[in-house]
């Protein structure tokens, strides 16, 4: 789908001079120092870089979970800075699915209930909600675990629940911040296989990772260093199963 640009569709993500600083007492940490990035519809992008380089900070800004200190961000052509609190909530609900390294599931709710959560805030009626949650769990091969609570699931299963939650509203953009960071390598490959499949189904995917093997799944690898884009290159993805474990 690289021909999307030709038909005048705005890029899913476009940032210009994106900065984010954190006040740490007297000093400020400049986590991002001006990131320019364009990601088109249907792309599969890996963001790499050493620990502390600003990958998570960038993802949080792209996911509308955080507010930039400086710079501009257009999501599907719309300037995010102009969105109010409720519109931002709607964007997070409808347009973006976010997968966290630490899952961020509600500990006391079942898998199905966790997956339903975005639909509740999206105003989907209860019966349809349940149905779609079950479908999303089936998509990540967890239909048989829907009544389990997070602590009754393995790490990989938890991450799959959080992916199902990210997918359930059928967002155009799927963001994952080190989705395999807390998982063993076998489980990591299962998760990456899932992303590959989602990409083939037409989702735009951005994955943060600091592992080369994981990044090799993407079509494009963006490297961040010290809060700026250090390199941005196309990659010929290796099919799953050919990695050396």
């Amino acid at each position, binding site marked *: 789908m690289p021909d999307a640009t030709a038909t005048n569709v705005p890029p899913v993500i476009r940032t210009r001079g994106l900065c984010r600083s954190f006040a740490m007492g007297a000093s400020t940490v400049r986590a991002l120092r001006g990131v320019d990035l364009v990601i088109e519809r249907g792309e599969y992008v890996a963001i790499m870089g050493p620990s502390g380089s600003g990958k998570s900070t960038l993802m949080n800004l792209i996911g509308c979970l955080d507010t930039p200190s400086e710079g501009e961000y257009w999501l599907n052509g719309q300037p995010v800075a102009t969105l109010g*609190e409720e519109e931002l*909530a709607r964007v997070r609900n409808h347009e973006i699915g976010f997968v966290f390294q630490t899952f961020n599931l509600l500990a006391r709710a079942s898998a199905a209930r966790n997956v339903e959560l975005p639909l509740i*805030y999206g105003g989907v009626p209860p019966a349809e909600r349940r149905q779609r949650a079950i479908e999303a769990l089936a998509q990540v091969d967890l239909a048989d675990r829907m009544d389990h609570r997070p602590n009754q699931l393995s790490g990989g299963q938890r991450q799959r629940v959080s992916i199902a939650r990210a997918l359930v509203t059928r967002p155009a953009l799927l963001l994952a911040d080190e989705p395999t960071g807390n998982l063993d390598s076998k489980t990591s490959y299962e998760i990456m296989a899932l992303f590959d499949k989602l990409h083939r189904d037409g989702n735009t995917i951005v994955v943060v990772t600091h592992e080369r093997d994981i990044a090799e799944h993407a079509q494009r690898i963006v490297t961040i260093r010290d809060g700026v884009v250090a390199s941005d290159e196309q990659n010929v993805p290796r099919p799953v199963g050919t990695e050396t474990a």
Partner: protein
Amino acid sequence: MNIVESTRLAIESIWANRLRSFLTLLGVIIGIASIISTAAVINGLNHYVSEKLSNLGQGVFVVKRIGIITNRQDFLDAIRKNRRLTTADGKALVERCPSAAAVAWQAAVTRDVVREGLEIRDTSISGVTPAVLQIEPFDVDAGRVISQLEEDRAAPVAFVGADVVEQLFPNSDPIGKRIRVSGQPLEVIGVAAKKGSFLGFSQDNFVKIPYSLHRKMFGSWPSVDLSVQAADPARMQDTMDEVRAVLRARHHLRPAQPDDFSMVTAEGINDLWRSMTQTIFSIALFVVGISLVVGGIVIMNIMLVSVVERTREIGVRKAVGARQKDIVQQFLIEAVLLSCLGGLIGVLLALGAAELLGAYTPLPARFPPWAPPTAFVICTAIGVFFGISPAKKAASLDPIEALRAE
């Protein structure tokens, strides 16, 4: 998101966090139960005093050698200075107080009463002129009160309280039967309706006999109480002034000297009650205040402890699309539901406590209708204040900040 959905989320959250919810409830329950039980006791005491403690009706007052004394010094002074009141004082009032419709007198001693091997101890044996029983009327359960004829003849008859009947006539009709006081046989002619006990003192342990007989049995030594009924209840004060003037003259008091007797009115008893109990009540309120504070601290602690967890929860909810107002609505409903539940349990506990207090302690308890709503409002306010403000603060954060909460 609509109210139904928010309520569902709130109930889900309450249920999912059962232990925390219960601990929060505990605070509300402690607060409500203690404030309402205390209020019930206070209310019960007040009611009892204003309705039952004195028989004094409109326009009636009693002149006593020693009135209602609230401290030791007054008591010692009264014992030393106040002259005994006598039947002569009473007769003087009859003659010289035109605004008094009736004057009666009585004197009392404490003795045991016996009948056929049964006994009741420390009974108040009072000799009354018949008018006393009209001025300070008793509800009569059976039989009749003492007549003028019996007074004139010093007849050995008795009008007795319910305790005397319970103790001496467990299974039989007392009317016409004999009891003995200090060796003197008395025929029971009437029984007063039961009044119950107050602060552990029974109001029903008494025997009333004609004053003339009492004088024969116990002499003229005990000071008498003079009961006076004003002809016009609205002008009782004038009658009291008249009585005071007559008694002062009889007792040869100079103008500068204080009265050597005291006058008790129903209002006076109520006033005295109020001044006596103010201290008790403020202590009670203090205790209740402490338990409310404890309840509040329990709630606050639970809320504060759970704020981190809840902040993360709020972060998760916001990350998947919850608006600020969805969060606030959910937490508000949660707080109010918890308070309602805690309030309900607290009210039920207090009802139970009031029943138990009434049954097993000398304290009368009476459930005050205003207490549940008041306590409920207080506890809801605590719940909302300690629950909502952190939630609201968290809800206004960027999702990532809420998620980062440690």
